[in-house]
């Protein structure tokens, strides 16, 4: 018996190791869609006036968040939440200081889209990641999978929704632009095609190499994003995570995709299992 078992396990281990090696090679990360639009945020220009936060609420019908310490007077969301798709945060360390705008990054290879079991979140028109409530089961896997902690859930509702920035798709479709970009008095957040924005970002950091960190965040990070960042302080300090060029979505897809490619392996395994069981039952070993 133990011989049987050992060969079986050894075979399984070898197959698994071979599979794992193959996995790494296949499945290249996707390119941005050809019609991809996005935004460019320039931390050196932002003065933290939060005009964009107010405009975002108006454009999306979201009510203000007024914590107790504001006596209900100030719209002061501490971060993204189920009423807040856009927020300005402050980073300060000694003399170094910067604001940072946070909203959905509209990733090129989004974790949330890879996660969502029912395609409620998908990259739709212009590569914008939107949410479809007719499909969403409320499993919150998108929250687990988003590296930027963007999707929010309506915890206090019996019929909860997922809330996140959809790049004001409704405005873009009418020929407009995202509300936050339209109102920014400093041009710290601008709208455009991803191509244009990337070129503009590179132009800015080349023009003032002493001011900018020599990198456009989102060009490649986690597979790239459609919202890009340039800054005078290191991006990690602004809360933008250090991600490889291949995001978790690509890594997971290569494992899942290899195991289930064309559904061949499961069907083959089923056939083998059924065959072995029939043979064994005939020989009288495992009668039901």
């Amino acid at each position: 018996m133990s011989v049987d078992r050992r060969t079986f396990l050894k075979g399984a281990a070898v197959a698994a190791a071979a599979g794992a090696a193959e996995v790494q090679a296949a499945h290249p990360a996707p390119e941005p869609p050809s019609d991809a639009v996005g935004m460019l945020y320039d931390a050196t220009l932002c003065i933290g006036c939060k005009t964009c936060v107010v405009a975002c609420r108006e454009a999306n019908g979201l009510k203000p968040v007024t914590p107790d310490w504001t006596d209900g007077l100030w719209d002061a969301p501490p971060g993204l939440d189920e009423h807040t798709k856009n927020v300005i945060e402050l980073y300060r360390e000694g003399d170094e200081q910067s604001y940072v705008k946070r909203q959905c990054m509209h990733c090129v290879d989004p974790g949330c889209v890879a996660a969502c079991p029912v395609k409620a979140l998908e990259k739709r028109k212009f590569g914008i990641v939107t949410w479809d409530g007719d499909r969403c089961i409320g499993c919150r896997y998108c929250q687990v999978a988003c590296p930027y902690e963007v999707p929010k859930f309506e915890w206090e509702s019996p019929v909860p929704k997922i809330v996140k920035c959809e790049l004001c798709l409704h405005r873009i479709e009418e020929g407009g632009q995202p509300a936050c970009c339209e109102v920014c008095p400093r041009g710290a957040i601008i709208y455009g095609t991803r191509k244009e924005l990337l070129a503009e970002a590179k132009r800015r950091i080349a023009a003032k190499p002493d001011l900018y960190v020599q990198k456009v965040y989102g060009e490649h990070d986690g597979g790239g994003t459609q919202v890009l960042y340039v800054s005078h302080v290191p991006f990690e300090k602004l809360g933008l995570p250090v991600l490889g060029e291949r995001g978790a979505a690509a890594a997971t897809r290569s494992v899942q995709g290899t195991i289930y490619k064309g559904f061949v392996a499961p069907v083959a395994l089923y056939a083998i299992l059924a065959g072995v069981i029939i043979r064994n039952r005939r020989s009288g070993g495992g009668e039901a």
Partner: protein
Amino acid sequence: MSHDTPAPVGGRIVSPFLSGLLGLMALAGLLLLWRFAAGLGAVTALNDGYPWGLWIAFDVVVGTALACGGYAVAILVYILNRGEYHPLVRPAVLTSALGYTLAGAAIVIDVGRYWNLFLIPVRPWTWNLHSPLLEVALCVMAYIVVLWIELSPALFEKWRASGDEARAQKGERWLGVWGKIAAFVIALGLLLPTMHQSSLGTVMMLAGHKLHPLWNTPMLPLLFLVSCIGMGYGVVIFESAVSGAVFGRPRHTAMLAKLSGAMVVVLGLYLVLRFADVVIRGKLGLLFRDGYSLLFWLEIALFAAPMVMLMDAGRRRNFPTLFRAATLMLLAGAVYRFDTYLVAFRPGAQWAYFPSLWEILITAGVVAVEIAAYIVIVKRFPVLAGGRSAESA
């Protein structure tokens, strides 16, 4: 009646213990009304940083692994052709059917938009075939059906033995049908857990940098698969011990001792894979650093302990040793899963999660349903092998 033929335990259903379980269920039922009326935030400590908590990590991820007894024994009996383990099949399938059904219920409780959950099977155009969670959802739904079909001969046998002529015939007929389709159903019962138990590991790969690198690895599916098989054997031994003590059934110590040999192999394989993974990915430095390193070693100790305890064939025949090792095995697998889904998941310093009292009570209610259903079914249906028959009880 042969010693190995399943027979109902018989006896009275109502007992103080069962009443206690009923009380827990009632309490959980009230809390659930609240949860569905006021939303998840009203009863849970979940938040946007920790969107998954006790119900997913314990009820679903640990719960289905504890329900892998049917899977693990079926591998032995039907694939490795060890017919001698056959008496273990039916009780294992029962705990699996109950475990999976209740895990399914826990998912319904946990998801926010459950009305869309039920539409998944009929809306294939919405399936994201790259999502490990879709794979889990479909396989778990299908496996619940398969498990109850695998258990249905218990019902047909009850009919056959009922003494009522028409019923007995019906039972005979259905048993005939089962005999014809059994191989194909059993094969599904092996395929589906292989798929979704591994996918339950893949699920957490998508957590990316938020899941500590000692846990986040492309090996997750394999580690989850191997450890669930170990837990399956552990649970069979555990269940034999408990039902032996409570219902006076034979413990099959000799058989379980042999079975625990399989557990040693599985545990060894898990440990080899786990270490090989850390070495290959070049993460050795993380093994001696911080609290996560300690957590890792705690898991390793929990997996290694039962292996060492059972290494010696002689000690395996000592029932208390066997029982202790099985319990440790279950704990090891449970802690590994809990860590992967919660403890090693680090969404950021501003977030914290500890299950609320209500969450814990609802989980207790789910477990109570499982135990109560088990008691009722083994008392009335032929599930447990040997011992007293229904008539003599």
